[in-house]
């Protein structure tokens, strides 16, 4: 199949349409506005609906309504806009609705900057909205992976009746790479008999809701949701790693940062250093078990992120105190260079902390 050169934001749209998503509700915000623009051009061509909502809040609530009525539906935004969506995302998780939410992260907090960052890791993996819920969080590191994860993301959402987040950064949204659209692995997707499509006089009303005024009922509901998350943790972890059985230093990084880390690792290998990589692709469920494969002589795990240290917490949880954990980060939309990473590894190898 021929590859197409596409900008990340537009590739998301093309992938969604390939996955049979016909509905997009969103709002402009840098650096992801090309996605709503793409959807506004392309969805009418396939009989879908694009609507620019009055705000990110309205958009996520439109997603709630459409998802509750059985549609494959998505929204997208960037960091400050994703903050606005937190209430709606919590409602979607509580009502167990499937949908895809794309976050092309930018500098924060607050209005921040428009350059790439990874500053919403906590927000994505630790809730963001109120209550005990999780998003399945997918972190691509290149446009092909972005496309694959968007397509698979819709299936994951439908299989578990849960919102799925694709966590990119401004670089992934803006850069152009060749992509091809592949069919994802086949999943057994449950029938959608719970949706609000009108009773037709033939069945009891379906109700989409996250309110349970009786505490016992809400606890029961929460227990069911937690069971679902346990199954997701067992089945949906995705990770790429290499050299960790042998490395003196293991770098933990995801997304754009991991690509830069691969360049740094190649440079270090030329100089005779043994450096491995653990690249989580699902940030939730997190690949904690991968860290068990690190050889006991490893001098430390270097977590590199475009933030002040967020995935760092999960790395510490993963290593269970067995290795020193180091951190290197850039904030504000600054992107680390391979040489900065090389220097950090050399510091660790030289015994510096």
């Amino acid at each position: 199949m021929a590859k197409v050169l596409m900008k990340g934001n537009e590739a998301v749209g093309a992938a969604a349409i390939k996955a049979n998503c016909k509905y997009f509700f969103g709002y402009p915000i840098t650096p992801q506005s090309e996605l709503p623009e793409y959807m506004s051009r392309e969805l009418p061509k396939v009989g879908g609906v694009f609507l620019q909502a009055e705000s990110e809040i309205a958009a996520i609530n439109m997603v709630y309504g459409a998802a509750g009525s059985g549609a494959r539906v998505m929204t997208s935004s960037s960091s400050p806009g994703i903050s606005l969506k937190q209430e709606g995302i919590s409602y979607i998780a509580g009502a167990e609705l499937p949908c895809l939410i794309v976050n092309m992260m930018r500098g924060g907090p607050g209005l921040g900057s428009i350059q790439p960052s990874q500053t919403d890791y906590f927000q994505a993996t630790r809730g963001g909205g109120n209550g005990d819920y999780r998003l399945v969080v997918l972190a691509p590191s290149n446009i092909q992976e972005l496309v694959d994860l968007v397509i698979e993301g819709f299936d994951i959402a439908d299989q578990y009746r849960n919102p799925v987040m694709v966590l990119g950064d401004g670089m992934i949204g803006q850069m152009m790479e060749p992509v091809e659209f592949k069919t994802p692995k086949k999943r057994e997707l449950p029938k959608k008999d719970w949706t609000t499509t009108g009773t037709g006089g033939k069945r009891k009303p379906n109700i989409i809701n996250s309110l349970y005024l009786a505490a016992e009922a809400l606890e029961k509901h929460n227990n069911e949701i937690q069971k679902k998350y346990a199954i997701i943790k067992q089945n949906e972890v995705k990770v790429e790693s290499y050299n960790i059985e042998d490395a003196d230093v293991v770098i933990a990084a995801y997304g754009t940062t991991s690509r830069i880390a691969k360049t740094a690792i190649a440079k270090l290998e030329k100089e005779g250093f043994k450096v491995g990589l653990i690249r989580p692709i699902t940030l939730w469920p997190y690949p904690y078990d991968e860290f068990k494969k690190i050889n006991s002589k490893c001098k430390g795990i270097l977590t590199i992120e475009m933030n002040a240290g967020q995935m760092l917490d999960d790395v510490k949880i993963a290593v269970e105190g067995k290795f020193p954990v180091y951190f290197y980060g850039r904030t504000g939309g600054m992107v680390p260079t391979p040489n900065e990473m090389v220097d950090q590894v050399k510091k660790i190898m030289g015994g510096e902390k």
Partner: protein
Amino acid sequence: MAIVFSKTRGLTDVPTHYCPGCTHGIVHRLVAECLEELGVLDNAIGVAPVGCSVLAYNYFNCDMQEAAHGRAPAVATGIKRIQPDKFVFTYQGDGDLASIGTAEIVHAAHRGEKISTIFINNAIYGMTGGQMAPTTLVGQKATTAPYGRDEALCGRPIRIAEMLATIHGAQFVERVAVNSPAHIRNAKKAIKKCFQTQIDRKGFGIVEVLSTCPTNWGYSPADAMKWLEDNMIPYYPLGNFRTPEEVEK
């Protein structure tokens, strides 16, 4: 003997939790009767608000979605846009629609969303125990306006019907009251016309229903109806502000 008044199929058998004399019950019945009589009940999806009527999803005999506070018009937009042949309505109170939800209702009207909104204006926040609403009258007491609403501090109450009637997409806008049998019968006519606006695919429709809250106003149900007549109707005039026929002219 012919039965001239009996319970509509549009309501479930669940007894409502509303206070004795609360007009929510009256309006629920009118909405349910209109859905049944217009033949759209089996195609209907309603969106419940946050407020006293948060449990409306238990009372209407059709598919329902519970929305976050103020977001019902956005949720309804999502429901209607993906299945335009279904009948979609929202049922909202004055905190939900006129406070947190002002952006959502204005933009649903602005886009001419083919949905119907029932707006319950009882000049107070009922569910949370009687706080001031954007629709609370000047001088009216509320738990967060213990000395009475002070115009200098928080402005005059908001007239939603008049405001939305300035928007082209809002093709049916009417304000009614349910404080007497005559007003209730008129209210039903307005609700039916509002629903017909959606069925005819003309655009957005809203009926603002002046309602009572005996419990938080501190009146008996009958006295509350009198208070509505004497105090709310002068400030919130009843009548039609927009119909599709006028818009077409």
